[in-house]
């Protein structure tokens, strides 16, 4: 735990990933971190590079704090199963769009006698394949 506590938040189910504010402490936390972000942007005695570095550092800290909260949010076995199914379906949807994107790019550039696919599309698919393979291997060994 860095600053935020898991009991201040609930898992976001219907609006993508992340957390929702559950208690007033969560609301205060959000107001404070956003205020600091605004403060960083408005204080006059930093140049652009310093401001970028400080903003990046603060955002990194907030991201880690959020990941920590999400990691520690309590879920029972039914909630874990629901989340796993929802995440799997989301992954399938994203993979479908990525594959369609790759096919469209191949077709488009193929018509122009070129071979090109956006590396981020391929990268996302490859990373997905690697994560799935590693996880299946690990689960097969340990579970």
């Amino acid at each position, binding site marked *: 735990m860095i600053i935020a506590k898991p009991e201040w938040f609930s898992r976001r189910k219907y609006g993508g990933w992340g957390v929702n504010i559950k208690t007033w402490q969560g609301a205060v936390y959000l107001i404070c971190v956003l205020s600091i972000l605004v403060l960083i942007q408005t204080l006059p005695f930093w140049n652009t590079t310093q401001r970028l570095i400080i903003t990046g550092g603060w955002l990194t800290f907030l991201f880690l704090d959020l990941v920590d909260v999400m990691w520690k949010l309590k879920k*029972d*076995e*039914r*909630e874990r199963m629901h989340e796993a199914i929802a995440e799997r379906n989301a992954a399938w949807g994203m993979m479908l769009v990525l594959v369609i994107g790759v096919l469209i790019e191949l077709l488009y550039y193929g018509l122009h006698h070129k071979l090109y696919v956006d590396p981020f599309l391929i990268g996302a698919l490859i990373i997905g394949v690697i994560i799935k393979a590693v996880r299946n291997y690990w689960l097969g060994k340990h579970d």
Partner: protein
Amino acid sequence: MGLTQQELANIVDVTRQTIIALERGKYNPSLILAYKITLALKKKYIEEVFEIEN
């Protein structure tokens, strides 16, 4: 037993929604959860609490 759904949920460390889903037969618990609930209800056998529906 006189336990409320929330009390049972707290004892076996699940949400009240999970207890409601179990009561309605909409969720099949893991063996460990079934065992915890059996103990919480002071029963000896899981079959006294849960039954398999065909």
